[in-house]
C-alpha cells in the first residue's frame, strides 16, 4: 500500500508541475519553450488519468477498510459453474479460447483471469479442459494460470500441460482448427474470452451446432452482436473487465470496480453538461466560453 501511495503521490505531483502551466497558457507561448519534455496537448488527458487513478485507488483503499460493495449479478459469470458442471456430467471436455491476440493485449489478460477461475472449477469438478491458443506467449501464461488453479484446488497432479497448446498465429488457420476440434470432440461447454474478429461467428455458430453451452466475453464491439446471437451468455465490454472482481469477490477488486463506476459517472456528467452547453451555444450564439471549456475537457 505504501508503494501505491508513493506512486499516486508522484503522479499527482507530476500533474501539478506539468499539466497546469501547460493547460493554463498553451496559446501564449510555445510549449517547446517552457516544457520541451512534455508532449503538447496532453495536459487534459493527464488530468483525467490522474483523476481516474485516484478514484480507483481511493475506492480500493475504502474497500480495504472493510466497506462492502455490492455487484449486480452477471449472468454469464454466474453460469460458469453450471457450464463446467454440465460438461462433467456429460463426460465431455470444456473448450476455452482466450482470443487471438498476444499477451500485450489487455483483453487477453482479462481472458486469462477468467481462465484461472474456470481452471479452478474444472480442478474441483475433476473435469477436462482444452485450451488451444494462437500465440506462443499466451500458451505459456495460460499453462501457468491453470497449473496455479489446480495447485490452489489441491490437485496439482491433475493438471495436464498438454491441454494448453499452440495452434498457429494465422487467424483463419486457428479458426479452422478450433472448429474442427469442436466438431470432433463435441465439448459440452465453450468459453470465448478475449479479443476476437471475424472468427467470432464461425466459432460460436459451430459451438451452437454441437449443442454446447457457450459463454463469451469481449471488448471488441464489432463482434458483440455475433456473440449475442449465437451464445447463451455474453459479457459485454466492461462486464468482461469486471469478471476478475465478480469471480474473486476480493476487496481490492471490488473497490476498483466501484472506482470505475465513479469514474463513469464523472465522465457521464461532463458529457451531458458539455452536450447541453454546446447545444445552447449553437442555438443562442452565446455561452461559447462554457462550450470551449467542456471541449477542452475532452482534449479537443
Amino acid at each position, binding site marked *: 500500500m505504501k*508503494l*501505491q501511495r508513493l*506512486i499516486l503521490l508522484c503522479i499527482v505531483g507530476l500533474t501539478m508541475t506539468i499539466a497546469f502551466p501547460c493547460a493554463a497558457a498553451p496559446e501564449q507561448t510555445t510549449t517547446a519553450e517552457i516544457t*520541451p*519534455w*512534455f*508532449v503538447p496537448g*496532453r495536459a487534459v*488527458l*493527464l488530468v483525467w488519468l490522474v483523476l*481516474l487513478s485516484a478514484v*480507483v485507488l481511493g475506492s*480500493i483503499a475504502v474497500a480495504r477498510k472493510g466497506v462492502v460493495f455490492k455487484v449486480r449479478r452477471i449472468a454469464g459469470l454466474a453460469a460458469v459453474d453450471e457450464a463446467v458442471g454440465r460438461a462433467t456430467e456429460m463426460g465431455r471436455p470444456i473448450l476455452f479460447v482466450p482470443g487471438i491476440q498476444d499477451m500485450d493485449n*489487455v483483453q487477453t*489478460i482479462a481472458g486469462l*483471469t477468467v481462465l*484461472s*477461475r474456470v481452471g479452478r472449477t474444472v480442478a474441483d469438478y475433476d473435469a477436462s479442459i482444452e485450451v488451444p491458443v494462437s*500465440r*506462443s*506467449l499466451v*500458451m505459456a501464461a495460460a499453462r*501457468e*494460470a*491453470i*497449473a*496455479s488453479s489446480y495447485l*490452489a484446488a489441491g490437485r496439482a497432479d491433475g493438471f495436464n500441460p498438454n491441454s494448453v*497448446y*499452440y495452434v498457429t498465429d*494465422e*487467424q*483463419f*488457420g486457428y479458426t*479452422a482448427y478450433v472448429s*474442427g476440434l469442436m466438431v*470432433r470432440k463435441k465439448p459440452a461447454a465453450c468459453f470465448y474470452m478475449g479479443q476476437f474478429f*471475424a472468427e467470432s*461467428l*464461425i466459432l460460436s*455458430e459451430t459451438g*451452437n451446432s454441437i449443442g454446447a453451452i457457450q459463454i463469451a466475453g469481449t471488448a471488441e*464491439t464489432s463482434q*458483440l452482436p*455475433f456473440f449475442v*446471437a449465437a451464445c447463451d451468455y455474453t459479457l459485454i*465490454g*466492461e462486464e468482461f*473487465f469486471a469478471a*476478475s472482481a465478480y*469471480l*474473486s469477490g*476480493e476487496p*481490492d*477488486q471490488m473497490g*476498483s470496480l466501484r*472506482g*470505475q463506476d465513479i469514474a*463513469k459517472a464523472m*465522465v457521464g456528467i461532463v458529457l451531458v453538461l458539455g452536450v447541453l452547453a454546446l447545444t445552447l451555444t449553437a442555438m443562442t450564439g452565446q455561452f461559447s466560453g462554457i462550450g470551449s471549456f467542456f471541449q477542452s475537457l475532452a482534449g479537443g
Partner: protein
Amino acid sequence: MNRQIALLVTLVSGVLMVLSGFLIPTQSWAEDVAEWFNVLASIAFVLGAANLAKIHLSKISSRDEGWGFSAVTLIAFVATLAIGFLKIGVAPLETAPLVSMSGEKDGEGSAFWWLYTFVMSPITATMFSLLAFYVASAAFRAFRAKNVEATLLLVAAFIVLLGRTFAGVVLTGWIPDSLSFLRLENLSTIIFEVFASAGNRAIIIGIALGVAATSLKIILGIDRSYMGSGD
C-alpha cells in the same frame, strides 16, 4: 521470487509506457520496452513451433482421433518452412544476378509465392466467406421479434439490409427530394451514424474505463489473477 520479478517488470514497463504518453524523454524507453516484447514474442515462436511438433507427433504416434489432420499439419509446416528458408524458385535480384538466393522469398514465380497465391489465399478466403453462411443461419434462428426491443432491432436490420443495396433505391427512389431522408439508403445512413454510433460510443467509454482500471490494477500488481494466483 519469480513472481516478484515478474511483477516488478510489469510495474516498470507499465509505468514507462504510461509516462511515454506525456513525457518526451521517456518515449524512446517505451519504444525499447515495445521492442523487447517483440523480441520475446519472436523467441516464443520457437516455443510454439516445438509445442506444435510435440502435440501433433504424439497424436500421430498414439493414432488419436483425427491423427491424419496432424500429419497434414506437420507436413505443411515443414514444407512451408523449408521452401521459405531455402528460397526455392526465387529469381535473383537485378543487382546480384549471380546470387541465386538474393531475391525476395515471396517474389512472383517463387515456390513460396505459389503457396501464397494458390493455397493460402483461397483457403483463408474460403474460411472468411463462411461468415455469409453462418450469418444467414444465425439470422434465421436468432432474429425473432420476441419483445419491443427485438422488434426495433428487426426493423433496423431490414432498413440496413435493404438500404445498403440497390433494393433500397428501387423501393424508395420515388420519394420526393424534400423527404429524401425517408429513402432507405438515407435511413440506413442515419441508423449507422446516429443510433449505432451513439450506442457504440457508450460501450466504448465503458470499455475504455474498464481497460484503464484493469491496466492500473495489473501495473500496480493489485490484480494477479492472470498469473493464476487469484485465489
